[in-house]
């Protein structure tokens, strides 16, 4: 390695490290303050706790009904994301491979729908689906997420599929495979990097969503983020417990991200051998 390249690498590393510090600092702040009592937090949010208290975590665990909320969050997120991946990858494949006027229009409507503000839908939407919601609110929520997530996921898949040469489909159909088999056996595995992206993007949105679950779910089916709101009052905030609740709510999604990141890396290396 040349001297110049080494210096360049060092500068990149320096910038990267500084930025990384800036990106995680607020996160660190949350953790530190979750170990402090409210008066200490208010007095100096930057100070390191002199004596560590786990009281906040204890309180947060029981008040949030942590394990039930966690289960709800997992069920809702996993089902919504899986179904979204299945439906939107198929739809994207169809739209990108079938070049007729209709598919162009559908794609346009999908893209346009991404910019519909939720505020514009909220009330007519809720009134329409009320009976459905009272029947099974988790099911209803998953259904809504598929509806709202289809456009963006399809859009992302659509972009990726257009980079896959059509010769691959043709080869499969010559081999006698049906459309469905060709798609799931050949095309879908090739889209792993974008599937990981679609999964991460949707999982984060669904996991952290607040407005929709609040309208739809009840106390028994509430998700983790919903339960962390318990600590935010109109006037006053239980900072210590809120921070502890936040740490608890974030751990599962961090784990999820770290796991999927591996998928991501394998996607990267596959791309490299190709």
């Amino acid at each position: 390695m040349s001297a110049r390249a080494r210096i360049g690498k060092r500068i990149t590393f320096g910038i990267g490290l500084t930025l990384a510090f800036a990106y995680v600092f607020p996160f660190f702040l949350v953790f530190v303050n979750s170990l402090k009592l409210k008066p200490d937090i208010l007095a100096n949010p930057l100070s390191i706790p002199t004596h560590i208290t786990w009281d906040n975590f204890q309180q947060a665990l029981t008040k949030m009904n942590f394990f039930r909320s966690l289960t709800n969050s997992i069920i809702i997120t996993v089902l919504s994301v899986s179904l979204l991946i299945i439906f939107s990858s198929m739809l994207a494949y169809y739209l990108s491979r079938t070049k007729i006027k209709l598919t162009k229009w559908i794609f346009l409507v999908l893209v346009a729908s991404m910019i519909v503000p939720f505020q514009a839908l909220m009330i007519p939407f809720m009134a329409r689906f009320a009976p459905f919601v009272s029947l099974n609110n988790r099911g209803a929520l998953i259904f809504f997420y598929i509806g709202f997530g289809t456009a963006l996921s399809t859009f992302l898949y659509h972009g990726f599929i257009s980079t896959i040469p059509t010769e691959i489909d043709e080869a499969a159909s010559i081999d006698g495979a049906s459309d469905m088999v060709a798609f799931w056996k050949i095309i879908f595995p090739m889209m792993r990097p974008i599937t990981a992206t679609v999964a991460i993007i949707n999982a984060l949105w669904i996991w952290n969503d607040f407005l929709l679950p609040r309208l739809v779910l009840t106390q028994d089916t509430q998700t983790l983020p919903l339960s962390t709101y318990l600590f935010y009052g109109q006037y006053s905030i239980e900072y210590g417990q809120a921070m502890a609740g936040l740490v608890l709510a974030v751990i599962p999604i961090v784990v999820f991200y770290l796991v999927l990141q591996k998928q991501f890396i394998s996607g990267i290396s596959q791309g490299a051998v190709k």
Partner: protein
Amino acid sequence: MPSARATKRFLKFALVPLAIFSMVLVVPFANGFYLTFTNWDGFESSKFVGFSNYTKSFQDPTFWATLRFTTLFVVVSLILVNVVAFGLALIVTSKLRSRNVLRTFFFVPNLIGGVILGVIWQFIFNSAITSLAKKYGWTLFEQSWLNDTNKAFWALIIVTVWQSSGYMMIVYITGLISIENDVLEASQIDGASPLRTLLSIKIPLMAQAFTIALFLTLRSGFMAYDVNVALTGGGPFRTTELISMHIFQDAFANGNFGTGQSKAVIMFLMVAGAALLQVSVSKRLEVQR
């Protein structure tokens, strides 16, 4: 006339997702659009009022102020988020040994929901920064940034960039790794400088990623709501209300459902225009390569 095979294909691949999509999005949207022409009060509508909800919306001076503020916010956040995100993507796709750790760090802000994030940053701007500033005499930071319209704008931008650049970084990484290695090696052998490689090989070859990232930031800029509510709450003096918050305020706090819904339709048309322009320009650039 589509063939039987094409119809079958449509039924197999597209029917279910499109049906759900229409039920959840298209129908309620059309319904909401219809309601803007009635005297809807959030619960019932009894008569047609023509365009009066739209005229009222445009006569509202705070709506115009909000539109100006939102446009400024979208433009500035669009530029900064993408510049930073692309930079981050370059860092974590470089040959650094620590690149995987760095990538995880950059993405961390995305793991927190907007409202909670706003509360944390409110705390940082109000307490953490001001207490440091007083200790070390940084005059720029002695007063909380959230007390001043211009600085509160930048506070919103900082938090937005901090939150969404990691997300857009992912999109750019996907773009960067899709570039074939032999192309890069060829350019290296040709003796192209890293900057030259970046400008004439990498960026053109990943134009698709730019299209997506720009579109996503454009969209999230217009729709920003959580951070706005939690960080500035529209303050000081209601000068930092972005359009989503303004609509929510109008409809639910002041009970003006008719104008609230109309403003949502106006917002939709604006974003549609901006997005259409952006995507068509980007697509043209993609084709040119």
